């Protein structure tokens, strides 16, 4: 029963090797989907290309449905998976800052790595910028610490927060995703084409 490495079914030594292989496939899919192009990524905010939205939501919906099916069939224990911790204001403020960075730079860290690999100089600068950002955060850690460590709500899921049934959450999430895809296609038809 999964997850395989934390349960000792695959020895921990494989961890790094598996990491590289997963990374290769991850990078390959990102690059092939066009995520190495900042103008394609930024298109989602101006309505001329919704690849980010489509890839992102499809991936989230497919993975959550798949994980819950695996949990249902007993291949995986969903309670053993790592749940991203919720620091209420940290998530919001960090997200807002990241959003501005996203529009300004046109990448997120994962996609910038793809762009670095194929020689986009703006991505090299962008990665340098991320490192400076991390450096600034660390130097000013005492200033950010109350947000970073405060308002900790635990490693909670939507089920814990609102008491929703996870299966309904997934179903509604899928409907939202499909509606979003349909709307994005309609918007794209109306917006002036941008060639990049």
């Amino acid at each position, binding site marked *: 029963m*999964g997850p*395989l*490495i934390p349960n000792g079914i695959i020895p921990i030594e494989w961890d790094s090797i598996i990491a*590289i292989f*997963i*990374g*290769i*496939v991850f*990078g390959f*899919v990102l690059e092939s*989907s*066009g995520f*190495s192009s900042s*103008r394609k990524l930024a298109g989602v*905010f*101006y309505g*001329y290309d919704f*690849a980010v939205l*489509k*890839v*992102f939501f*499809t*991936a989230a919906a*497919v*993975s959550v449905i798949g*994980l819950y099916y695996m949990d249902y069939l007993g291949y995986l224990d969903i309670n053993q*998976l790592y*749940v*991203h911790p919720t620091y209420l204001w940290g998530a919001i*403020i960090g*997200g807002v800052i*990241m*959003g*501005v960075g*996203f*529009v*300004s730079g046109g990448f*997120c*860290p994962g996609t910038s790595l793809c762009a*670095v690999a*194929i*020689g986009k*100089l*703006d991505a090299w600068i*962008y990665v*340098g*910028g*991320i490192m400076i*950002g991390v*450096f*600034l*955060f*660390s130097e000013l850690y005492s200033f*950010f610490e109350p*947000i970073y460590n405060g308002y900790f*709500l635990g490693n*909670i899921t*939507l089920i814990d927060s609102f008491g929703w049934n996870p299966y309904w*959450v*997934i179903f509604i999430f899928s409907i939202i995703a499909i509606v979003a895809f349909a709307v994005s296609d309609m918007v794209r038809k109306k917006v002036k084409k941008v060639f990049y």
Partner: protein
Amino acid sequence: MSSKNKKNSHVYWNPYYGGFLLGIIIIFTFYLTGRGLGASGAMKSSVVTIVDKVAPTHAENNAYYSKFISKEDSPMNTWLVFEALGVLIGAFISGGLNGRIKWRVQHSPKISSNRRLVFALLGGILFGLGAQIARGCTSGAALSGMAVLSSGGFLTMLAIFGSAYATAYFFRKNWI
């Protein structure tokens, strides 16, 4: 040959297809390792390593760096760093197959490449800062968080896209 490549170099996969495969990878990652994907963690490790090399005492005294420094192990020896290496390799393979590998600055024809680089740097700084505050970027917090229905993941995702849409107007010159 080269003309054919040029013609195809901007043809990408169908986004649903890419998204589907990405979802499968996330499932696979969770199934094998019990954790999600990530990207900014590798950059954090690099920064910690550099600071530790340049100014070890400073790194030890700083409350944030010292979390990631241990005597026995290099901060580079983490899952995320290996994964990021894999991403570089994978993207290189994909870019190579489609003839997209080239040194260049990609920018809208309306702006200069210097302006593009300045905004890229600015965006990177902001994203690096934000990713540390939120403990994860779009892949680590939002995508992998949403896969397990983490409240924080959804919150981060909403905040990123919300603020990006809210501020998109001010950056429109750079893109369209």
